[in-house]
């Protein structure tokens, strides 16, 4: 096992455990402030956006570039998930469209 990978896994495990264990360990002596609760509400949407947008506008080498194949596939997945709330369906639609666009573009 490579050392960098081991550090990644141990670090991820550590921070995740803290978030799971801390409130239980404090045994409800501490309730989460409303402000924090509210902030947590936006974390997922922010993180997924910050991952997805750069995937669509930067190429593999990290240069800004409009990539029609990625953009069209992404819009298809976006529309599909919006209409049909299915995770597996969305992943399959995305792969299929991306695969087909590979022949056309």
């Amino acid at each position, binding site marked *: 096992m490579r050392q*960098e*990978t081991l*550090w*990644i*896994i141990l*670090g*991820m*495990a550590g*921070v*995740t*455990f803290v*978030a*799971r*264990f*801390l*409130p*239980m*360990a404090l*045994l*409800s002596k*501490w*309730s989460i402030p409303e*402000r924090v609760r*509210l*902030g*947590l*509400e*936006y*974390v*997922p*949407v*922010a*993180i*997924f*956006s*910050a*991952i*997805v*947008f*750069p*995937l*669509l*506008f930067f190429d593999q080498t990290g240069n800004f570039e409009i990539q029609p194949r990625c953009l069209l*596939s*992404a819009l298809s*997945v*976006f529309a599909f*998930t*919006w209409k049909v*709330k299915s*995770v*597996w369906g*969305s*992943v399959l639609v*995305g*792969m*299929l*469209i991306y*695969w087909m666009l*590979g022949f056309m573009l």
Partner: protein
Amino acid sequence: MDEPAWREGVKAATPIVLGYLPVGLAFGVLARRAGLTPPEAGLMSLLVYAGSSQFIAVEMISKGALWFPIVVTTFLVNLRHLLMSSTLSLYLNKKSLRTLALLAAQLTDESFAVAMSNRSKFAHGFAYLFGLQVTSQLAWITGSVGGAFFGGLIDHEGYGLPFALPSLFICLLVLQIRSPVHFWMMMTAGVSSLIFKATFSGNGYIVLATLLTLGIGVLIHRTGRKGIEKIEP
């Protein structure tokens, strides 16, 4: 009728197992594609055991990210466990710290949802919750290792596989958009991540864009603009 509580927990885990096995398989395949070995994928599923953050880590590893940005991003993604853990703690009084640590380590969105639908069962003892969680995690680990193993046998560039992870993230993003405020949070995080990525080297752009969006989200609320419903865990 008088089944041991842990076995009732195992049974209650059935729908979770059916969900975790295929997703675990997908994780394994994508982890292998990003260069992780089956033992590495298995270890991650054993020690981290948090789906979205594992998929995000795999994506970042494939882009060559080092441990620090990956760990900070994981921390942010998994902060939501604070909410579930604090809710569960209301039902877990008088348990030893060791028992709590064991239960906490295996807490996921799904096991939380199932446990909360059977509150009376785990209020009496932790055996029910334990059976439920161990069974669920076994399914996740089995899927991950299996997927990483089979992932070595398939063509990594074929069948649209390079777009599997982006599709998953787009889907998870869309499922998060529950109000116009969420939509504008998406635009804020998306556009700022593009700017941060173009400006700084490395993978810090995810964390930077998330923190910026978080700050704006809290500020908007302070100035009195409503539009956020109560969180359903």
